[in-house]
């Protein structure tokens, strides 16, 4: 071929020049653990299901969520959402309203009739779950999906545990509870109500391959309070239980609730609903030290519940309660200051915590009891082979979420144990901390939009009926997620590489072309979600 003057070589593309050889560090895509996922006691992949939800794929979002928690419509109402407390977006403007999106998905599932899909082959193993509260239901759900035959025995007339007999219906409508429980029984789980298990050991001997004790803590603690003969004193769990059964106790017009937990507030709010025109919560410490959550206190106060801090009850008798005032010492412990006051009260409700009814493990070989709760190992197994326990009956935080998490863990441990193995926890990825995010790329909402959003969000708390608004708000909330530590297909890495060394491989997936990646690190710095790490190149 004849060439122009002074040209001796054919034109070639620079693609022949593999500049990747300059690299001293290489980018790698990573999955970090988002703080929401990290904080969720049920182990939900929050960021993951929000990602599905953002695209409006509500069913796949719900399926993704229910890999870990079978009760989203319930938890979307009653969970204290530690996920939101941990949410990175809080450092930017306000935490993502994860819980409200969860409720939205749960409600969608109920209204659309979505059911769980079970594809595991029957294992031939039988598991007994004692108790149908959140931990029992969660365990049953996971065990059923693993192919085991599950029976739940429940001493009460109906299933649900504290979700039915403790948490009042104004926070958790019973049709929601029923809907989510029946979805679990549709998996073939049998729930035998009015069927108290008297002995865990005999259950094991009855032919169950494993037993999970999910018996909760139902005995109201009775602190010693000097009281006259005609004092009307009852405990909160019994009072809530009777109310839930449609047979509420007579409380009178003035009710005093003694205690500072969420149960105390539920009791006081329930008393108001039962007709008490005065419901006073008496608590020995102050607001800051009160274990009850802010939301609950605020809602209670909004409903007219009166809070009386730094007070203990020293005497109860016919229509009168004597309280002694307290102060907090340097360590925050309350101590009496010797001042008394008399309040009028038709009844006193004690909300001082609950004990576990341990009679079914009385004398059971290998089962250790400490501090009134059943002792378990990291796999939730008691000292007795095949006997597991979880939820309120074992050490740990007494919340429904935690109980659901226990149910999942127990199911995994039982499943492994039934196969003669030990469950191995997947290694926990490093946390997706706020400082790894490049928040520049997340737009902040202009004030006008924020205001509108706030009011919309507030409104949904009360207006479950406004379906259209709900969907828009839920989608909006889901889309506020920063996708901490996980790629969300924003194409930033693909765009910002000066060497075109990022390749798209199908929907939302990328790959580095190491032939040309010079390792400059721009992609890692500009990744909004912190999903790229730079690693030293091995020479």
């Amino acid at each position, binding site marked *: 071929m004849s060439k122009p003057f002074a040209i001796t070589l054919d034109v070639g593309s620079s693609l*022949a020049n593999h500049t990747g050889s300059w690299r001293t560090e290489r980018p790698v895509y990573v999955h970090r653990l988002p703080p929401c996922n990290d904080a969720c006691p049920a182990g939900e992949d929050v960021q993951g299901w929000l990602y599905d939800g953002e695209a409006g794929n509500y069913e796949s979002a719900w399926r993704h969520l229910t890999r870990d928690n079978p009760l989203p419509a319930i938890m979307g109402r009653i969970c204290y959402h530690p996920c939101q407390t941990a949410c990175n977006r809080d450092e930017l403007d306000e935490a993502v309203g994860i819980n409200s999106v969860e409720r939205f998905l749960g409600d969608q599932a109920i209204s659309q009739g979505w059911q769980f899909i079970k594809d595991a082959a029957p294992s031939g193993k039988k598991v007994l779950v004692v108790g149908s509260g959140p931990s029992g239901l969660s365990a049953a759900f996971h065990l059923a999906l693993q192919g085991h035959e599950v029976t739940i025995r429940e001493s009460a007339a109906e299933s649900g545990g504290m979700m039915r007999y403790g948490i009042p219906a104004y926070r958790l409508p019973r049709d929601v509870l029923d809907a989510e429980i029946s979805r679990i029984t549709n998996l073939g789980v049998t729930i035998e109500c009015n069927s108290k298990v008297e002995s865990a050991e005999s259950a094991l001997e009855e032919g169950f391959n494993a037993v999970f004790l999910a018996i909760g803590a139902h005995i109201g603690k009775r602190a010693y309070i000097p009281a006259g003969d005609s004092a009307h004193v009852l405990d909160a769990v019994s009072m809530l239980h009777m109310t839930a059964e449609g047979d509420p106790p007579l409380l009178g017009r003035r009710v005093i609730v003694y205690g500072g937990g969420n149960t105390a507030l539920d009791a006081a709010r329930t008393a108001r609903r039962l007709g008490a025109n005065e419901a006073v919560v008496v608590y020995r410490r102050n607001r800051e030290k009160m274990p009850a959550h802010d939301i609950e206190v605020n809602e209670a106060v909004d409903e007219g519940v009166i809070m009386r801090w730094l007070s203990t009850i020293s005497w109860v008798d016919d229509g009168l309660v004597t309280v002694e005032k307290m102060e907090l010492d340097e360590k925050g412990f309350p101590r009496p200051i010797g001042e008394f006051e008399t309040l009028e009260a038709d009844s006193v409700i004690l909300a001082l915590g609950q004990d576990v009814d341990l009679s079914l493990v009385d004398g059971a070989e290998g089962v250790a009891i400490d501090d009134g709760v059943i002792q378990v190992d990291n796999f939730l197994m008691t000292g007795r082979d095949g006997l597991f326990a979880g939820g309120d009956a074992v050490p740990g935080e007494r919340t429904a979420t935690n109980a659901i998490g226990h149910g999942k863990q127990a199911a995994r441990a039982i499943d492994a144990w039934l196969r003669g193995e030990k469950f191995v926890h997947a290694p926990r990825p490093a946390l997706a901390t706020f400082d790894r995010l490049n928040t520049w790329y997340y*737009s902040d909402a202009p004030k006008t939009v924020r205001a509108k959003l706030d009011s919309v969000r507030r409104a949904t708390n009360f207006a479950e009926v406004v379906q259209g608004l709900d969907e828009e708000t839920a989608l909006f909330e889901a*889309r506020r997620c920063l996708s901490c530590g996980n790629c969300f297909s924003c194409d930033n890495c693909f765009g910002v590489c000066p060497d075109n060394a990022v390749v798209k491989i199908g929907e939302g997936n990328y790959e580095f072309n190491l032939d040309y990646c010079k390792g400059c690190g721009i992609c890692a710095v500009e990744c909004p979600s912190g999903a790229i790490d730079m690693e030293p190149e091995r020479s």
Partner: protein
Amino acid sequence: MSTQLKFYQVGSFAVGNRLIDEADLPEQSRSSRANSLTSGHRACQGCGEALGARYAIDAAMAATNGKLVAVNATGCLEVFSTPYPETSWRLPWLHSLFGNAAAVATGVAAALRAQGKSDIRVVAQGGDGGTVDIGFGPLSGMFERNDDVLYICYDNEAYMNTGVQRSGATPPAARTNTTHAIGPNPGASFTQGKNLPLIAMAHGIPYVATATVADLHDLEAKVKKAMTIRGARYLHVLVPCPLGWGSRSEETIKLARLATESGLFPVFEAEDGEVTATKKIRRLVQVEEYLKPQKRFAHLFGAHGHPDLLNAIQAIADRNIAKYKLCDPIEAEADHE
């Protein structure tokens, strides 16, 4: 719902977004983008110029359906992309001399017009040295004649390809190989400056704009708009240079962002000699935040630093903010408290 998406999803700031309609995606988020400057070029790790050139030329290619010719001045962009006999360019591309890119481009446009091929468009491109200094005469002529060329200057604020010498676009106090960080006024002196976008506007040409590699959406929109206009157009793109600035290769985009967020590099658009749009600062920062990561400004900081020079640079930023109205009045007040 689409407006909400823009507010809350990162669509408006990140390169792409899986939830946006295909049609609204920028060129750089498409696998089908032209990659006009393809891989294997020899630009340094993290070169802002390589990135800016691909952003700009890919957008121009998209706007012209690939009917585009590029003329390049001498400089890094030319040298790293075309070591004989290789080329990284995937469009017809010419290089003649350091200072004559505007004149050559004018000639190419004239030749195409003479052949009745006015649908084929012409861009000229060069570094700041090639543009504000040595190529200034031909460029001014191109403006004055309103020749149908889009001229793009990739401003890395010095003659980088020959080893970092000061140009008319080098900022005050910057250390280069010809402005050493010694004496009472270390680095480049505080001159009158040579603001080429303003000079271009003074020619009254139809379109002048500034942009940076930190805002792809803005840059693409400006190139695409420029290609809808006939006549002389000028685009001035700030492209950080890790080698010449003494910055970390991974901070190229971050530095371009800080240049605009500090007010030192105003991003605006002008038509027929009048400013028609400015990009507001989103998160105002002090110039220090922009200068500190760059070794060319290292002498301003530390025990033997020069707070006076730092203040003088801050004053330049403040002047820009006032002149181009870069902050919304209320927010600017809040940030200065």
